[in-house]
């Protein structure tokens, strides 16, 4: 929870809906969702299983397309972008953090982190340098040359976070990043995410644990694909004291 005012809107979702299947087999994963994430803001999304949290995240990152509404990231309407352009967006602007880490087992930690940059055509040396910076940012620069199966769960998640943060990426999408970790490691991960957001990124965090949602500036509640409630910055104690 930062005392800074959030910056401009980084991610904007308007009237977003997602339907799977047709006719009688149709499933409404999302209905008419409006959501903004600003630079310097961490937004948590909570809800029961099947409420549409992960669908929201995949649509926000351009991995899936909504069946209704618009999604804008850094001013680009994802619906108007080609598959290639959306992939480019994920290399340069959007970073994903998954519950299961999803590191490439055949690559070392630094290679995993450098991957988006290398895929973007950055020279290997420069990509590795940026990756090392990102690993230092999450506190595990000394583990750069280890393979994922040589790291603990917490360390792997830090590598995943570093990969999500490497380069000029500003929007971090985290899907249950603490789900596979013990409570201590989970707190560490949230601290890193929070620090990154405070440094100027925007974050969208999916979680089903309130204690991790408490790290966010706002929390949005989903049920059956619909935003049923939202808690925001005004409820923070610091804000109450502002201007007093």
């Amino acid at each position, binding site marked *: 929870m930062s005392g800074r005012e959030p910056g401009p809107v980084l991610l904007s979702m308007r009237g977003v809906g997602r339907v799977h299947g047709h006719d009688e087999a149709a499933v409404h994963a999302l209905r008419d969702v409006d959501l903004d994430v600003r630079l310097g803001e961490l937004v948590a999304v909570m809800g029961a299983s099947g409420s549409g949290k*992960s669908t929201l995240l*995949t649509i926000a*990152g351009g*991995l*899936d397309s909504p069946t209704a509404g618009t999604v804008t990231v850094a001013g680009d309407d994802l619906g108007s972008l080609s*598959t*290639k352009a959306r*992939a*480019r*967006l*994920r*290399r*340069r602007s959007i970073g*994903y953090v*998954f519950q299961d880490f*999803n*590191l*490439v*087992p*055949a*690559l070392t930690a630094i*290679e995993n982190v450098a*991957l*988006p940059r*290398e*895929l*973007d*055509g*950055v*020279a*290997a040396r420069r990509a590795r340098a940026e990756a090392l910076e990102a690993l230092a940012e999450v506190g595990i620069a000394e583990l750069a040359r280890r393979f994922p199966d040589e790291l603990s769960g917490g360390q792997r998640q830090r590598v995943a976070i570093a*990969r999500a943060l490497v380069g000029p990426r500003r929007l971090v999408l985290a899907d249950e990043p603490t789900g596979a970790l013990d409570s201590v490691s989970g707190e560490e991960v949230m601290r890193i995410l929070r620090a990154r957001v405070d440094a100027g990124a925007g974050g969208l965090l999916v979680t089903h644990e309130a204690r991790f949602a408490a790290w966010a500036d706002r929390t949005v509640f989903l049920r059956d694909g619909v935003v049923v409630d939202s808690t925001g910055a005004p409820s923070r104690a610091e804000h109450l004291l502002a201007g007093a």
Partner: protein
Amino acid sequence: MLAWWRGLRAAGRIAARDARRAKGRTALVAVMVGLPILVGGLVGTLALSTVPTPARQAQAILGDQAQARIGGLIQPGLAQDATATSWYGADAPGAVEPVDVASYEDALAGALPAGDRLVAVRQGGARLSTGDLLAPGWSSVLEAPAEDLAALVVPDVRDGTLPDAPGQVAVGAAWARALQVGVGDRITLQPEQPSATGGVELGEATAEVVGVLAPAAGGASVYAVPGTVLPAPADAGRAAWFVLGDAPVTWQHVRAINELGSTVVSRHVVAHPPTRAELAALGIGADDGATSAGAVAMIAGVGALGVLEAVLLIGPAFAVGARRSARQLAVLASAGAERRHLRQVVLLGGVVIGAASSLVALVAGVALAAVVRWVCLALDVMAFPDLRVPWSYLPWGVVLGLVVATAAAWFPARAASRQDVVAALSGRRSEARPRRAVPVAGLVVLAAGLVAAAASVRSASTPLLVGGVVGIELGLVLSSGALVALVGRLAPRLGVAGRFAVRDAVRQRGRTAPAVAAIVAAIAGVVTAAVYVESGEQHRRAQYQPLAAEGVVVASFSTEGDDVEARAAAVERALRATLPVRDVVAASLAVAPGSAGRETRDPQGADLPVDETWVAVERPPDQRCPLDDLLAASPAERRELGRDPRCVAEGSYQVVWTDAHGGGGTLVDDGAVVGRLGFAGAQDDAAALRSGAVLVSDERALWPDGTVHLALERWDAQTGEHTTDRSLVVPGRVSGMPAQYGLVVPPPVMDDLGYVAVPVGFLATTTRMPSETEESRAALALMRADGAGYVTVERGYRGEQPLVVWLLALAAVVVGLGATGISVALAGAEARPDLATLAAVGAAPGVRRRVAAAQAAVLVVLGASVGTVTGLVLGRVLVVSERARFEVYDPTWLVVVPWPAIAAVALGVPLLATGGAWLLTRSRLPMVSRIAA
């Protein structure tokens, strides 16, 4: 461009490390890619190694010391290539006046380099025998002065020494083994030498074996000093020389000797051949080795089908690898990888494995070839004089391996790039929807292939035929997904295991369709080949024209010279002494008076112009082939008219008895010979002859009134004119004999023709089938009785063993089992979650085995049945197309199906595959847990 390359490097790094991590799958792909490359490297190296290097070529002819070998005088102004393999002169051979040896040697010596000298040798062929044994074939004999012999002998002396006096010989190891002789034994040599009448006869000499030579590539079989075996050359045309000395015989020297009239094999020129331009200036062109379009199409077609088969077998391994990496690929997508990056990860796996395995396989193939050569040398087999590696072709082996592995990874790569990223990230299993365009394209290609194959039968076009076969196979491969989908309709009628297997096959067509296609392609190919091979064997059996019934002996002797009667008697005695003969009758040919025993060659050996006469059989007008009346027919007309039954040829056959010119004449017989030949209706044929009728083997030659029209034809050697002297109509009968007895006349008809009978041989019936040893002894005895004596025992058609068909069946079994095994093994791993669910709901442990067996059965029964039907159709197409391959239509090509071998494939492969899957699968079901799909 740079960005593209950097992204490719990242994808390549992942692909290479994945290949190292999945060792089992990588090894499987590497073996399947590398094994054919290894075989190619092995066979290619061994094939090239059978061709001697220029140095070896020279050594094989010249030994270690001679600079050159000069042949006898042919004609002045010759032109030759570097090895004297091809040469030509302006005039026809035989038109040169004989030149004495001494004066020609003087001329040759003047053309040699300074310091070199000529060594006169005698070279020729001889039959070798001992008292009991006749070595098969002709040996090559080289006689040289004793002081120079050691320099000219090519093989090493293994036992004894080289000859140093007349009456001694050194023989090659193979000949010594055939004659069972060693140092100190005596052998008989019968060289070919000119006869007094200008022909050729066999001389005879005996000699002591003083040395046995080691096996070698090249050189003569027998070495001796002059005066042992071969007669002295009468003139320079029959002489030969070697050149000994230190100075090389260059191309200029060779040309100078060519101008004198001899060919030269020079060590220096073989190693430093003249340029193409120099040869072209002499009118000697390189051997273009023109390959027919048909041969190219055949090789390309077989190669393409082989690559397709390999791709189909390897593809599923990549498909499963890509599916197992689905989550990893989805992570890459989430990190910003485009579809091309995902494709590259899978494809580069194929590139890496293909390149590495091909390289290793090529090296292994060449190494294995070296081992094979070493073993052959140890066994005295000189098949590979030098180890020659086809370096310029080896890179193509790597390219081929790359192409196969990359092609196998192509479709899995495309599927991986199109996967549902979200589903993969969330751990859900998803199946890519099959594209309808592929089976439709497959049906179109299949239809085109059928049309092309049908068209090739009429047009006898090999490229069209090969295109049709490839199109049919390719069409079936592309349609295999649709075939699998069709099988899916059976699911509701099956039990749990069967229903599971069928639905799994339909839903995982990326894995099952290639396996089905591989089985279809393999079995179709094998069945096609088996039908063709069996039909070819039956065709050869139908074409075979026996000389007589089995066990009957046919012998002939020369009709040249004045002592024919004495030789005939000696031949008859030899037959009776060596074979279990029952009775012997003489055979005679009807020839024009004065033609028997005529001089046919001049003293120089050139053919003398003599008139030719023969008896021709005229067919009725309605039985004449229409082609005979066409002055010039196009190939299409020939093919079309060639199908007319009147134009079908009687086939080729071996001439039984020959006249003075070496050609087959008209047999004259009163029934004694025909009655003993033993063919069907022999006694009726003999009776017809006794009644004065002639026998014809071709029913088209018999006129409606039961007569045969004979015409005495003559070819005038002076004018080149062909005339009919006279015609004769005689009673006739169609005999049951083969085409070599096309016309048999009784003595009265021979008299009417104005011909005379000339004895040419004997026919002997036997009390039992003579053994091959007895036949060999008879051959030796006849050769001693008459140098040109010949005997053969009719043993019936001896076809090829059906080994080829069974080897093909074995190949189909291996490929069928391999394809099924790969797919079922891959399916087993993917089906773990489903099997765990089955266990959780109470399925017995044996269900797992039944599921595996059912999965195997779905693939292999579908593939084997479609493949067998396709193979039978293609086999029929190939066999029928053979009928019109040549301009003369050949209806004896019949479609013959080797049903036992086909059944072994069509039934055996499914049984083995299903049974193997059942036996080799563990029966314990996995437990339900948080299993990531």
